[in-house]
């Protein structure tokens, strides 16, 4: 029976009944994961092996992140356990760690939720098909759930481990906690989806859409970091008034109490805890699926607003290419948030360093005491901190993929691809250099750094920026993707961002280790200039590659 026949008889191709909703939903979920899988097989090697290798590499990297987070959460759980476990109120530890895990998962997935759920390019075509909106939403949520679950686990699993250590290994408890973990993943997903939904609603009413997402994300990030830096105070307050707080939660927030209680194996807790999560997720899913069509239509309908001053005025090729890059960056909240956050962080750190001047001086003194007071040590520390910040400003990394289906414009125009590459490199400088200068001047003033040390640090930071710009571009030229349905994919999902970000952090780690190991023998300024030379040398090698093979690849890539 051919496909058409099977459709005519109401059956889906492949033997499944078209009427069977689970078949339809699974098809959509499969499509969603297929989109993700293409990110691991981009570029030349579109083989299954390349895809599987990329996927395995990504999983390992995510596992490393989750394990690192989990380790710090375990330490926190362990330190809280004497106060929060026992007296028949073990649920308190779980409530605390559930909240932390869910907050972390929501923070990480909320940036993707708006784009993935409501602004995917194929939303309209799917809505034009006989597919219930709720199914499209559910399928879009599936990959988000996997990520949300992983980060929720980094908070919840350490609490389970601490609890099992205390009460002893009990298979029943382990199974119950695994079920609770899977359920809590849905809670994180629901919260993330609500935030994405709110951002989409606000965006649809704004002229400068994209900025709402940035502002919302910054506010949430600000709150998260505020909470993070207050965690010691908060933990102390919890220790001092844990019983009172437990009574309050028990009395006024029984659903939270039941979720916490469920982890301890209480049947009442399990039933009511799971019911609580199911109701929250169900209500949120119901509201979102009911409004999905409207939100998607509003999100895709670009408001006919005026852009620019309407002046027809030409510039040089280099100028118009750079303007194009600036417009590309400022038109996308995802791009701004993921590749511009480091710039804001550098400026925020500069302000914090001036306000908390004593803390900076005290921190540097401690490091000097541990590693010996090598002259100019502050400059090395400053450079390492800036390296970490600059690594997060990977503007060039997705910049080729983000040309998307419009890449034919650049390819058909009489522009040397090197000019295009250099406009992307310049944009990365524009993002990083102001932050580097502001932070380095602030730290130089606070630590009374010598002019020579400051200059060496700034040169090293500029060399590092040059390296990251060329390295990101090289990765994207090697592994481009133009068939994305959602710009979050090239910007922050798949293998490229992981290679770029973690590769650069690893490099910083190695440079940092070498710095501390050689601080006694090599003056900091000399070390920084050596690092600068190496980074510029590698950048030059990539530049040569771009000017040769890269040019040819760009001309025909699609």
């Amino acid at each position, binding site marked *: 029976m051919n496909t058409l026949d099977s459709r005519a008889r109401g059956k889906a191709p492949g033997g499944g009944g078209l009427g069977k909703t689970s078949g339809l939903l699974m098809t959509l979920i499969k499509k969603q994961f297929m989109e993700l899988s293409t990110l691991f097989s981009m570029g030349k090697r579109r083989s299954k092996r390349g895809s599987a290798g990329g996927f395995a590499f990504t999983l390992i990297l995510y596992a490393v992140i989750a394990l690192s987070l989990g380790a710090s959460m375990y330490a926190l759980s362990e330190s809280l356990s004497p106060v929060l476990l026992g007296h028949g109120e073990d649920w308190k530890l779980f409530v605390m760690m559930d909240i932390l895990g869910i907050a972390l998962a929501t923070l990480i997935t909320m940036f993707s939720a708006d784009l993935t759920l409501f602004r995917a390019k194929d939303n309209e075509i799917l809505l034009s098909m006989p597919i219930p909106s709720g199914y499209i939403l559910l399928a879009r949520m599936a990959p988000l759930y996997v990520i949300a679950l992983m980060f929720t686990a980094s908070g919840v699993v350490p609490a389970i481990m601490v609890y099992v250590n205390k009460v002893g290994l009990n298979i029943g408890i382990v199974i119950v906690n695994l079920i609770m973990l899977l359920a809590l993943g849905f809670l994180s997903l629901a919260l993330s989806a609500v935030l994405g939904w709110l951002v989409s609603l606000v965006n649809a009413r704004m002229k400068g859409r994209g900025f709402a997402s940035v502002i919302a994300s910054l506010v949430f990030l600000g709150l998260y970091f505020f909470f993070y830096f207050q965690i010691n105070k908060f933990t102390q307050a919890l220790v001092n008034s844990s019983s009172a707080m437990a009574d309050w939660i028990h009395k006024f927030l029984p659903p939270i109490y039941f979720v916490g209680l469920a982890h301890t194996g209480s049947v009442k807790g399990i039933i009511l805890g799971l019911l609580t999560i199911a109701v929250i997720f169900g209500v949120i899913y119901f509201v979102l699926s009911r409004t999905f069509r409207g939100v998607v239509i509003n999100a895709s309908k670009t408001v006919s607003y005026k852009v620019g001053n*309407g002046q027809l005025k*030409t510039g040089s090729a280099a100028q118009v290419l750079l303007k194009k890059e600036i417009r590309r960056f400022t038109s996308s909240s995802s791009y701004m948030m993921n590749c511009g956050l480091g710039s804001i962080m550098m400026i925020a750190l500069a302000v914090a360093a001036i306000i908390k001047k004593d803390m900076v001086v005290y921190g540097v003194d401690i490091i000097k005491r541990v590693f010996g007071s090598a002259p100019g040590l502050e400059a090395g520390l400053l450079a390492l901190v800036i390296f970490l910040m600059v690594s997060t400003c990977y503007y060039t990394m997705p910049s080729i993929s983000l040309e998307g289906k419009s890449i034919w414009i650049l390819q058909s125009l*009489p522009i040397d691809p090197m000019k295009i590459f250099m406009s992307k490199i310049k944009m990365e400088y524009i993002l990083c250099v102001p932050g580097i200068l502001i932070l380095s001047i602030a730290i130089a003033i606070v630590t009374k750094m010598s002019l020579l040390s400051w200059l060496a640090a700034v040169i090293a930071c500029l060399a590092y920026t040059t390296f990251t710009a060329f390295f990101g571009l090289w990765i994207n030229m090697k592994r481009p993707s133009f068939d994305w349905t959602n710009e979050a994919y090239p910007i922050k999902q798949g293998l490229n961002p992981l290679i770029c970000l973690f590769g650069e952090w690893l490099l910083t780690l190695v440079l940092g280790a070498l710095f501390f190991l050689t601080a006694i023998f090599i003056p900091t300024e000399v070390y920084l200039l050596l690092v600068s030379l190496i980074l510029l040398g590698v950048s030059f090698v990539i530049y040569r590659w771009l000017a040769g093979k890269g040019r040819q690849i760009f001309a025909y890539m699609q």
Partner: protein
Amino acid sequence: MLKIEHLTKTFGEHKAVDDLSLEIKPGEIYGFIGHNGAGKTTTLKSVVGILPFDNGEIYIDGTSIKADPLGCKRKIAYIPDNPDLYDYMSGTQYLNFIGGIFGVPTEELQKKAHFYANEFSLIADLDKAIGSYSHGMKQKLAVIGALIHDPKLIIMDEPFVGLDPKAAFILKQIMREMCDNGTAIFFSTHVLEVAEKLCDKVAIIKDGRLIKSGTMEEVKGDESLEEVFLELEE
């Protein structure tokens, strides 16, 4: 102005274009017709230098596209079948961008952009984001972008798709005027009536091979182009 010699392009095992040769002189409008998947877009993309080809040679005004791609592209304007432009720019910003790349002086850019935008009734929308444009509006903007730098050769892939009747009429008029001034135009179309009325020469491609080409009279004789095309396709 355009000379294609023995062009061959394969995708894996499939020969998309097979030993295709043709020549377009300045001032000619050359229509390129064929069924879906016949190799029209592959040929046009090879001509504008955005698709590498396996064998043969393409010369733009006597210069090989392989030897001097940038020099050739300076003389070409290309309008693809689906004009995916920069959604994050306004129409004006897009034209400024194209003007900057081709080094069009500001005064000339203003004059031409206003003229063509007026002709295509796009003047009121130039300051709006391209993302808010309809398919037809994007097509009009792509056409304006192609015309503002006085190309010697215009390559168009299905240029009339998405245009309203008035815009299609104006585009045909502009195409004729440009050719009268020496510009060569090579375009693909499925609208045979348009090809019949507008083109000086026509080429019919089937499964990657050129099966008939020449002046309109040579190709169709006493029949209509549609009849000839259908006979050749059988």
